[in-house]
């Protein structure tokens, strides 16, 4: 009995310490810890993917490392998916999300979106040339593979009513596409461009046949309570700096991403040289 009560006390103590930690300022906590814990993608070339040695690299990882350097801490990367990143953030498992997250109205109720946004993507499909898709309406009643949690899934299924087959991650969906289980893979156009440009022979007979639709800004995400805290403010300043200095445009080039008009505009607007 005594032992049980001891365990109970320890458990309560642990719980209490977690709550206290959560209440503390995130920036102070990151500095104290010496690491910033960031949720990133590991299946989304060239934003966040695994290099041959198994390390997560990509444009977003570069951004994360830049943030960590500016704060003067180490970056710890936690792979997240579209379906779990916001939960991880709310649970306090990560401090920040930099994971190709579209900045939508619905998400703003749950996640603090850092402005200015660091990228703008749009929706397209990857399809075999033999599928002969010409316009979005051609997708009607046909099987379209997608990845869970992407913001465009709902919009596309409502507008063009394809038969959606949604997978937990990008490789699963790409495999299903290769296996002929669906006629097209619905995704962000930057990933499709980089997949096609990768020179992999298995994509030789594939194309991005449609006109990209529904441009969507991407944002780094923090907990809502952090949006106006020192942490949130610092991130906003860093983001402005990225646009001004042309760092984003430079990284875009480095990772072979199709030049985005959004970045050019922001660069001019914020008075960069």
């Amino acid at each position: 009995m005594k032992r049980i009560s001891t365990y109970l006390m320890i458990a309560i103590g642990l719980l209490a310490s977690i709550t206290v930690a959560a209440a503390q300022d995130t920036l102070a906590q990151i500095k104290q810890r010496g690491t910033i814990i960031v949720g990133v993608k590991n299946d989304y070339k060239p934003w966040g993917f695994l290099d041959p040695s198994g390390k997560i690299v990509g444009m977003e990882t570069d951004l994360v490392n830049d943030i960590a350097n500016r704060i003067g801490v180490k970056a710890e990367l936690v792979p997240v998916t579209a379906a779990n990143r916001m939960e991880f953030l709310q649970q306090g498992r990560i401090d920040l999300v930099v994971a190709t997250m579209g900045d939508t109205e619905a998400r703003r109720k749950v996640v603090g979106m850092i402005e200015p946004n660091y990228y703008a993507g749009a929706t397209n499909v990857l399809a075999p040339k033999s599928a002969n898709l010409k316009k979005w309406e051609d997708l009607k009643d046909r099987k379209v593979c997608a990845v869970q949690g992407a913001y465009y899934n709902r919009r596309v299924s409502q507008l063009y009513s394809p038969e959606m087959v949604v997978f937990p991650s990008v490789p699963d969906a790409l495999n299903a596409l290769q296996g002929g289980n669906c006629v097209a893979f619905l995704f962000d156009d930057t990933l499709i461009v980089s997949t096609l440009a990768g020179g992999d022979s298995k994509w030789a007979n594939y194309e991005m046949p449609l006109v990209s639709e529904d441009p969507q800004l991407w944002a780094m995400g923090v907990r809502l309570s952090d949006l106006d805290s020192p942490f949130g403010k610092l991130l906003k300043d860093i983001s402005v700096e990225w646009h001004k200095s042309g760092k984003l445009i430079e990284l875009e080039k480095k990772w072979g991403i199709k030049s985005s008009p959004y970045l050019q505009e922001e660069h001019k607007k914020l008075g960069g040289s």
Partner: protein
Amino acid sequence: MQGMADFFRWLADAHHINLTIFYDSVDQKRFLLGLYTTIWLSAVCIVMSILLGLVGAAMQGARSRIVRAGVQGFVQFFRNTPPLVQLAFFYFAVSTLLPTVSDGHGGRMPMINNTGWAVISFSLFAAAFNIEIFRSGIEAVPRSTVEAAEALGYSRTKAYVYVILPLAFRVCFPALGNNLVNLVKTTTLAYAIGVPELLYAAAQIWSEVLNVREMMWVLLITYIVILAALVFVLDRWERALRIPGYSA
């Protein structure tokens, strides 16, 4: 109906308990399709796995050594590999080796789609266990009873169908029930290959509406209800089969 939708909309606004499945028609349709798919998948797999189990158990007692070895191989393969791995193996590896059929739009698609593979995979997986479960029942039938049947002129097959199986079935019923309950829970794995069952529907909804907690509750309660119904049916069936004086 409208009143209920309004209530849940109010619940979402005032208390942040966002159950879109009760007021958003898109999410509602998704959820109901998920519920239907889960029940359909479970029902088909239960029937298939019992039938395959009975056939397999009968073949285990066959005179031919090759047949017995075949059944044994089947049982070992499906019992000793994780169902999720089997599912992925069928869908991603085997599927591409099969001939393709027209998809009705001038293209080609694999002969068996994701739902088809889920049915095949889960039925075989559960059947492997059912074979062993039926074997345990068959071996519990006293040798003297079988001999008595033979003495009365029953052929091997007739003795199996009319004497051994009815007795064996009663002995192994609790174990069979366990396996079927497990089978229904295993259907959630079909989520990995995009079969629109309950977990898939819920994950679709929560990744868009961001109401993970609420949907977790909904999922849990829905499965409890589905499985309670199954257990109730199994229970009634077991009672109906009871022979006074035989077994417990």
